[in-house]
């Protein structure tokens, strides 16, 4: 790997990232902060492509910048109140000390990191092994092979984390379903048109990302995030059933983890060992599993968004005018 020199684009990117992060964290207006965070997410996605990580860039654009920003924007525009900040000498001193300490830590950490030479591991590194045994994994894209075959157990637990997150968000609803969240009432015609055009496009894009994951950047997470966007658009555009409120909700949320666990139980029961995919059928198994995961991930991200919206009762008055201090 030849060391790539820093270009002007890198320098601009880094400057933009730091500026966006600083504005995100320090502007007084919440809406500005959230928009700056959106910019930060987009710049991060560009940074990942500069660092040769197209999978990560796709995921960041769809999940990190897309879904997270949607959650944040929805949180800001209904209520723009900021609890009063305790000001005073004590707090200012704390801020200054904190800033100095943070600067020292950051510089120290950066120095240590920059000092790392090329990896000189004493044994075969995991990355070398991935390249050596990729053809046994059933897919030809190394990141997908790591995620769904070599280290599939990590991904299984990660899907469990997603399920726990959405259950936790549902637990904040009075009856642990989405029934309490009012569906959007008024649908402007133009939005309906957009949804009719865009929803099929998003489904196609998601499907393409899913299938492409076997050979190229993409996969269940990216596809799921795109599909989640489609589901939310449909909900806003006059199809509230796109995100089911109760009966179908939990089965859809859980279908990915259920499929993953079933695969694990089957492999163990048939004597191969937990999650041991035979080279002959690994490719098909991974694709089928990813399809289920895509459905669950999409519904999970969409349900997180809906669950965070306020229940109708108790009514919250007209949101107070934005306060900047």
């Amino acid at each position, binding site marked *: 790997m030849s060391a790539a020199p820093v270009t002007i684009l890198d320098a601009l990117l880094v400057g933009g990232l730091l500026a966006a992060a600083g504005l995100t964290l320090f502007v007084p207006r919440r809406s500005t902060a959230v928009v700056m965070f959106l910019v930060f997410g987009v710049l991060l996605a560009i940074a990942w492509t500069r660092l040769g990580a197209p999978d990560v860039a796709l995921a960041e654009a769809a999940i990190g910048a897309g879904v997270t920003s949607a959650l944040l924007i929805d949180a800001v525009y209904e209520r723009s109140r900021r609890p009063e900040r305790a000001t005073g000498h004590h707090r200012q001193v704390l801020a200054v000390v904190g800033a100095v300490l943070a600067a020292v830590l950051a510089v120290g950490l950066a120095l240590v990191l920059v000092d790392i030479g090329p990896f000189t591991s004493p044994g075969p590194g*995991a990355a070398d092994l991935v390249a050596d045994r990729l053809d046994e994994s059933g897919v030809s894209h190394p990141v997908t092979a790591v995620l769904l075959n070599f280290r599939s157990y990590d991904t299984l637990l990660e899907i469990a984390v997603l399920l726990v997150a959405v259950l936790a968000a549902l637990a904040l609803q009075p009856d642990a379903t989405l029934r309490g969240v009012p569906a959007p009432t008024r649908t402007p015609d133009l939005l309906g048109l957009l949804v009719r055009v865009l929803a099929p496009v998003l489904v196609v894009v998601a499907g393409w990302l899913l299938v492409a994951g076997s050979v190229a950047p993409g996969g269940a997470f990216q596809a799921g995030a795109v599909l989640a966007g489609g589901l939310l658009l449909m909900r806003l555009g006059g199809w509230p059933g796109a995100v089911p409120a109760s009966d179908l909700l939990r089965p859809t949320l859980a279908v990915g983890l259920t499929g993953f666990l079933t695969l694990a139980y089957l492999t163990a029961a048939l004597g191969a060992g937990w999650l041991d995919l035979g080279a002959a059928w690994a490719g098909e198994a991974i694709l089928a599993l990813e399809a289920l995961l895509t459905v669950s991930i999409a519904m999970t991200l969409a349900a997180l968004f809906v669950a965070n919206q306020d229940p109708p009762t108790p009514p919250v008055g007209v949101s107070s005018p934005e306060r900047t201090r």
Partner: protein
Amino acid sequence: MNDTLGALVLLPLGGAVLAALLPRHGPWVGIVTAAATLALALTTAAAVYRSGPRHLELAGWGAPLGIDLRADGLSAAMLALTAVVGVATTVYATGSDAASGRPLFWPLWLALWSGLNAVYVSGDLFNTYVALELVGLSAVALVALGGRDAYPPALRYLFVAVLGSLAYLLGVALVYAEAGTLDIVEAGERLDGATTAVTALTATALAVMALGLALKTALFPLHAWLPQAHAAAPSAVSAILSALVVKASLFVLVRVWFVVFGGAATPGAAQLLGILGTVAVVWGAVLALRQPRLKPIVAYSTVAQVGYLFLLFPLATPGLGEAAGTTAAQAAYAGWTGALGLALAHGLAKAAMFMAAGTLALAHGSDRLTDLRGAATRMPMSTLTFGLAGASLAGLPPTFGFVGKWQLLQASLISGQWWWLPVLLVGGLLTAAYTVRVLGATVNPPDAELAPLAPVPRRMEWAALSMAALAVMLGVSSSGLLGLLGVGAPVGGGP
């Protein structure tokens, strides 16, 4: 046989999915899953005790390409503790909605159990990160089941848990950069073999990991989040959090410290952890003495008791790499079994205490000490439970807590680190003090009018008492458990 390691994680996870899909049958799914997981955990512990550490290569690849699961004596003991306390809290939680907090308790608790087991059997640094996140997120969600007043402490807990995990993840990246593997044992061997001196990278990795994990374990001065979160949660959840969840990050810290960074862990850093633990012992106990309500008392007691567990680092670190039979190795072995035995004892006793606190609060409608008058005669079982658990925490003979402290005492004397002796004594006295204060508040003053009690299902009191009884009885026959802790231990040159 080794397949039980996978089942220990994936079985409760299946239970969690089932409980999420069948909200009305949560208690049954919970009980069946708990019984099966207990059987798996005890089988695994017996196998480890009889024939040494277990090892399983997941997906047939083997580390460092795939992920390996491992269980040594410490893992087995933690799995067993989790299962025993897990069954008791499961039974307890079926008793009352107020103690468990609504139906979503079941999927979240089973997912948490799965995550705890995943931490204990994981042989991989990054997999441990994912498992810790599963534990952290489900624990926070369980706290939030406590209702609106629990939301602010839950959110604070979430921030702390995730910040700690991020620091840990940064450390994992640094270790990977140095060793080229994520496998815990292999990384340890490579770091040990590759470096003659401790590099800045290794030191930084150890520092950020220790910081993150100490934050998640609520080591003084990073403890402020814990009492609020543990006190605000429903009682069954508090028991789970205090008895089990704080142990998970401590377990990871022990693994990282002794196995991955065996060569880099300096005595100075170990002493620092011991000193912070000492401050925690005193500070937590003093604050516990000042709380007007029962659950915060028990929660601050956790801060104090966690402090003891950190004595492991100064007492066992000097014995790393010493041959069996040397004084240093003996001291380290005593410190290892003592501190980790104390962790087990604390798990049992603290589960009992929180469950007893829950039944008392449920019956009296409040957990203010001033409202608990008369409990000693009207709810003798719960009061007895609290007293027995307090005795074990204080380290009175013949409890299991006493055995742990005795081992720590031995380790301090053999290794010449006499300065830990007063900590052990003062901490015990302070623990006894706040236990007696609670018991004193339950005595019935003559001719006082007492409000009627709300009914409490008997099985809740039995579940609590069984944990307290276990914490006492294990002290009488502790050699097997201490021997289990020594199986495959990194210090002492083997059992």
